[in-house]
């Protein structure tokens, strides 16, 4: 009797490179942890300032950028968003900040694709999946 060979284990290939621009190491760690639940995302780079982040975006061409507002360098996340879009036009940008008062200004900035308050961190992964068009991970 012929036995069917076992089906090859499906490899989940990373589909979206993620760039994290955040100056608080604990929040960087939290973002990495959140995205570790979906293997289709890989962290391509992390930066504490927008200036370093833009350089990383230029070299890694990420599909998704999680961008804080108050950063270590001169530039804020909101001010730097167009520069990120310029060097990585295919990247979706989420302004992930604790500054609730920036929601409207973020909405007016065409380079920013979504605004998420840090206290709503549970929504970060579903939002990223929706924005990048990946949708929920396959069961």
């Amino acid at each position, binding site marked *: 009797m012929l036995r069917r060979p076992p089906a090859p284990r499906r490899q989940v290939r990373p589909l979206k490179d993620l760039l994290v621009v955040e100056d*608080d190491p*604990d*929040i960087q*760690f*939290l973002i990495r*942890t*959140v995205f570790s*639940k979906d293997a289709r995302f890989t962290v391509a780079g992390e930066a504490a300032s927008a200036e370093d982040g833009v350089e990383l975006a230029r070299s890694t061409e990420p599909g998704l950028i999680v961008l804080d507002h*108050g950063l*270590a*360098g*001169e530039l804020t996340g909101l001010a730097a968003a167009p520069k990120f879009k310029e060097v990585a036009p295919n990247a979706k940008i989420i302004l992930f*900040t*604790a*500054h*609730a*008062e920036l929601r409207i200004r973020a909405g007016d900035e065409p380079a920013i694709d979504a605004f998420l*308050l*840090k*206290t709503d*961190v*549970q929504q970060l992964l579903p939002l990223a999946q929706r924005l990048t068009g990946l949708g929920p991970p396959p069961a």
Partner: protein
Amino acid sequence: MTSAETPVLEADGGAGAANYTKAILNILDDLGEERGRQADSQRAILNVLEDIDAEKAQLEATQKAILNILDDFDEERTRVKEANADLQAINEAMRGFVAVAAHDLRSPLATMVGFASHLTANWATLNEEDRRNFVAAIERQSQKMSRLVDDILTLASIEGGGLNMRPEVIALREAIDRCLDAGDGDTASVSVSCSPDLVVRADPQHLGRILGNYVQNAFKYGQPPVRIEAARVGDVVEVRVLDHGPGVPAEFVPRLFAKFARADTASTRVEKGTGLGLSIVRGLAEANGGQARYEPNAPNGACFVVRLRHADRSGR
């Protein structure tokens, strides 16, 4: 006298002359009366003129009073304008503070919520090291949040007059040593010049907080070597915390101890705070009968000063 009453010359000279004399006297009487009336009219006119002058003077006085009132109005308007500008500045600062405080409260909260929910959802599959890392992050962020809440509550107590005060006689050198022992590794390098005989009267917790803030700032925003000098100046004891960093930008010095103040420099952007530290220091120093101030540490660096009441060991 009318024309009907005018005497007529008669043939009888004597009687006629007497009549003329009478007529002339009558005319003279009439003239006298007329002159009297004229004088009365003149007096009346002069009185009216005097009245007009008095009226004019009164009008001028009223005009002057109105001008003075208008001047007062102008001054009042300027004062109201200035008060309005002050209120607007306070309002602006308050809005800025609320934004900073909300941000600084939300950030640690977000990290705590995020890690706690991740731990809850994935406890069984997480390894020991990950669990420990997550809990450590929660602990760090809760400490951060606790410090901020403490600052806000202290400031509210200072401003609301509900500050707990338990003044004691404190040996200053011991208080400085306690403050440096409680600091992180950096504070071991601080050199101290303070006679063991120097004694102040203050709340020990408040003094510890003032010294702690000055020393932390010296390392956060200044540069080593950091030095503490204390000396008696008359009835007060002056403590100076000196560093050798860039010092405070001159334009920011007037607002340095104000609430919600933060200079926009590279070091303050990296070291996130609420801008409450020095306003708390000043509030505590004043609540203890002292003063807090800044002066540049020539040729470079900052010098933060606190002046406290001197006491002798008997507590006087």
